[in-house]
């Protein structure tokens, strides 16, 4: 079964760019990568999704190298409200999904 690992925690200051990497070995050819944000006592909330190279939306960018064994979520200019736990979600084959171990981001004033 694929393992999906992330750094446990990260601290950043307001206005800085934050990059969170997820390692997902054994990701299958057709599988995609999604990142979610979770606040306490809430369900995960979608941030961005991609299959390869770079994807950008209004809140984040997602970088995926050619081998697709990892991905990096980039949050530009974080604010205090970005303090949350961030998870990558990877499809690992037919009908199976694995969340990453989660990264607790703390944004400091």
């Amino acid at each position: 079964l694929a393992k999906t690992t992330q750094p446990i925690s990260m601290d950043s200051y307001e206005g800085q760019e934050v990059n969170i990497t997820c390692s997902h070995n054994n990701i299958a050819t057709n599988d995609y990568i999604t990142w979610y944000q979770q606040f306490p006592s809430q369900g995960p909330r979608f941030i961005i999704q991609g299959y390869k190279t770079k994807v950008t939306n209004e809140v984040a960018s997602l970088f995926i190298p050619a081998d697709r064994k990892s991905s990096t979520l980039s949050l530009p200019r974080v604010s205090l409200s970005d303090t949350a736990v961030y998870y990558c979600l990877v499809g690992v084959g037919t009908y199976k999904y694995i969340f990453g171990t989660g990264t607790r981001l703390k944004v400091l004033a």
Partner: protein
Amino acid sequence: GAGVSQSPSNKVTEKGKDVELRCDPISGHTALYWYRQSLGQGLEFLIYFQGNSAPDKSGLPSDRFSAERTGGSVSTLTIQRTQQEDSAVYLCASSFNLPSGWRGGLSYEQYFGPGTRLTVT
């Protein structure tokens, strides 16, 4: 429009009792997922429905767990003879089905409900 809803929001039960957790997906979403998040832990995938069918049930933690979906809509996760280790937040999500050969473009994100917090005493 309405999001994914789950009921009950909280459930306290005694060890050995059966519980049913309900999920109402977003209308039109053909895919439905169940996850579990134990206290202070990460998210664990349980099962995926494509329409009313769950092609792979191996993610369910034990044979005390079962899930069904009817009418391509509502899903129920049932836990029989609950144990204390079943205490967790059970999350449901729904999405459009990922088309075969998808290579990016349209987003097929999973929309999550608020979860059901299950406490087994």
